[in-house]
């Protein structure tokens, strides 16, 4: 806020004093502004763990600043707001990290409860193997779910307890009951450890398979089925290094060079209510309820208390 102060050209003592006062006020305001900017940066660094390190969940930081998931804002968040310092911490000037060799995605199952399956193959240089095992590295996958599907956070916790993932969480709209047109999108974050067992299978690559259980919300009304399309996940490599007090450092692993996704976007067809049914369904529902109620009412009034004249059941 650089204000330009327009001061009268008249050169009386009072006007000179007024001019000096305004300049001082301007300086104070600018000082306050700089101070607030420093405070904001400090707070920002605190919410991302300590400066240069990432908290337990990458996505949590996004939802601390935003109310809902908007793709361009999330892209900007990944590009500019996550401290991706893994290379620096590994003291690897060439930043030789595993690269994504293949990413195969599919939706498994039928009905409203399915699994989003991701098979990810990484290639790496053999000398990196020791570092990956030594530094408790893991692959973090953030899945931006389309509007219309959701993940149950408690179901994911059950999978974590069973050892399927090393950690998992859902951020955004986790209301399990609302239909899609009354709910917002959510993000699932899955953590998968890179263990020595995984790395020992091949000399220069490892594979991670991840199946995330998802559930369909009731879609907007249509002609029969509503189509929900999945985008690409965001992948990160994160390691906790002893030399840095086991703070987590991450690097982003780009997926846009994989052609698998671009060929055919992943889709899920969810049955939806048919708008044309509305009039008939409402009319018949009301009438049926009323007729059933009237039958009970009529019979109740016709019921006589002389049932005692009927032969009671014998034992």
């Amino acid at each position: 806020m650089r204000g330009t102060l327009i001061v009268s050209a008249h050169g009386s003592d009072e006007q000179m004093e007024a001019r000096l006062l305004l300049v001082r006020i301007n300086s104070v305001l600018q000082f306050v502004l700089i101070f607030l900017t420093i405070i904001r940066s400090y707070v920002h660094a605190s919410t991302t763990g300590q400066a240069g390190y990432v908290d337990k969940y990458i996505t949590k930081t996004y939802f601390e600043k935003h109310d809902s998931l908007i793709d361009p804002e999330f892209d900007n968040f990944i590009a500019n707001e996550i401290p991706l310092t893994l290379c620096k911490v590994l003291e690897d000037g060439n930043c030789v990290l595993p690269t994504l060799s293949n990413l195969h995605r599919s939706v498994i199952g039928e009905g409203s409860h399915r699994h989003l399956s991701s098979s990810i193959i990484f290639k790496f240089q053999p000398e990196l193997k020791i570092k990956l095992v030594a530094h408790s590295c893991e692959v973090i996958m953030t899945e931006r779910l389309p509007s219309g599907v959701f993940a149950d956070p408690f179901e994911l916790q059950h999978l974590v307890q069973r050892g399927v993932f090393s950690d998992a969480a859902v951020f955004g709209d986790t209301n399990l009951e609302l239909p899609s047109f009354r709910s917002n999108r959510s993000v699932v974050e899955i953590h998968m450890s890179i263990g020595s067992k995984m790395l020992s299978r091949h000399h220069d690559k490892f594979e991670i398979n991840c199946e995330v259980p998802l559930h369909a919300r009731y879609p907007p009304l249509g002609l029969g089925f509503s189509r929900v399309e999945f985008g690409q996940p965001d992948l990160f490599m994160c390691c906790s290094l002893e030399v840095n007090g086991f703070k987590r450092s991450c690097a982003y692993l780009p997926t846009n060079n994989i052609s698998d996704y671009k060929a055919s976007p992943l889709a899920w067809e969810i049955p939806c209510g048919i708008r044309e049914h509305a009039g008939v369904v409402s009319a018949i529902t009301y009438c049926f309820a009323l007729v059933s109620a009237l039958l009970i009412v009529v019979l109740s009034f016709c019921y006589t208390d002389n049932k005692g004249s009927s032969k009671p059941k014998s034992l």
Partner: protein
Amino acid sequence: MPGISFQSLFIFSALFRVFLIIYGEWQDANMEVRYTDIDYFVFSDAATLMASGKSPYERSTYCYSPLIAFLLMPNSFLHQTWGKFLFSASDLLVGLLIHRILKLRGVPEKLCTYSTMVWLFNPFTFTIGTRGNCEPIICSMILWILMCLMNGHVLQAAFWYGLVVHMRIYPIIYALPIVLLLDPQHFQPGKKPVLVEWSSRALKPSSATSSSKTSITQYIWNFCINMITWRRVMFGIISASTFFFLTGLSFHLYGWDFLHEALLYHLTRTDPRHNFSIYFYHIYLHYEHEFSILEKLISFLPQFIVQLVLISRFALDLPFCLFLQTLAFVAFNKVITAQYFVWFFCLLPLILPWSNIKLVWKGLACIILWIGAQTNWLAWAYLLEFRGKNVFFQLWVASLLFLAANTFVIINTICSHLYSPLFQQLKQGGKLKQGYERI
């Protein structure tokens, strides 16, 4: 059928439930599909939060009174099955109370035992407690209230009534019949109300006195004139005070989260997802816009009319009235889930000794139609939810058939019931006003 002692039946039921709880733990640990109800994990998580000083409403989908979470706090420091044992014990208590209530009304021991078996050996009821659903606690409280009224302990009944309405809203529908029953002709100072014996169900009211048909009208007339009686006022004050105290305390501790989740959610719930109610598809098709006041009134009208008529006709035969009211309430509700069926299952054994319905074929027809309609609905729901077929219309038709089956059961139950007021009418001075003569 050889005689079975109630004690043997009770012990066997208890052991069976213990076995189911242990089996449930094994299944949860070793199989993909869990035995335990998902709601039990919700209760447990909420109880753990409460035990650590936090709000149970931090657990999403926990929409019950904090008392439920409080009762399950030992899950976190004793054993995770504490709640299941508590719910199963309540389930057994329901069986015990059914037996006691029937004995109080003079039902022969054999018939008492057979009627109690309808609860204890109902596959639905013995799984619901062992899977970790809290409905048996509510059922046991409803039956306890009935017993208190039968023993003349009105104030105690009022306390428990306020408590049960705080825990579950639906028993509010019992308020009017209970208040109608607290008539000075039944309750007189210093005297217990006199129960009508089961053996007199074959009798018709004496011609010297007014018939029961007009006496209901007379009761309603007396009620309007003598609405304000000491017992009715005290029942209202104590039950309302209990309800508001518990609700106020919960609000003080947990704020608007409690009010929204435990109270307002149930009062305003309109779930568009498929359930047994005939309204689910209608709600889904109109979910994008709000319902008008007129539409809300029209959907409430059948429920309201049925409840009012059932109360006005059968209030004095309280167990029968409560059964019919509950069955009708569930059948006409905007949302019906399977756990609601327990609400009337616990009252069914109380009316069986007064029913003329023959198992072959009318009784079987009711059972087959009710289960058949449910199975039909479940089949279409399976196609929708697990096969992804668009069968919304067929599922909605199945829900209409289910309402038809419920209506059929209600009608047949009324037709075959031997009306028997719970209490005898007393003159001033405690003498019986209404006698009975043999046919």
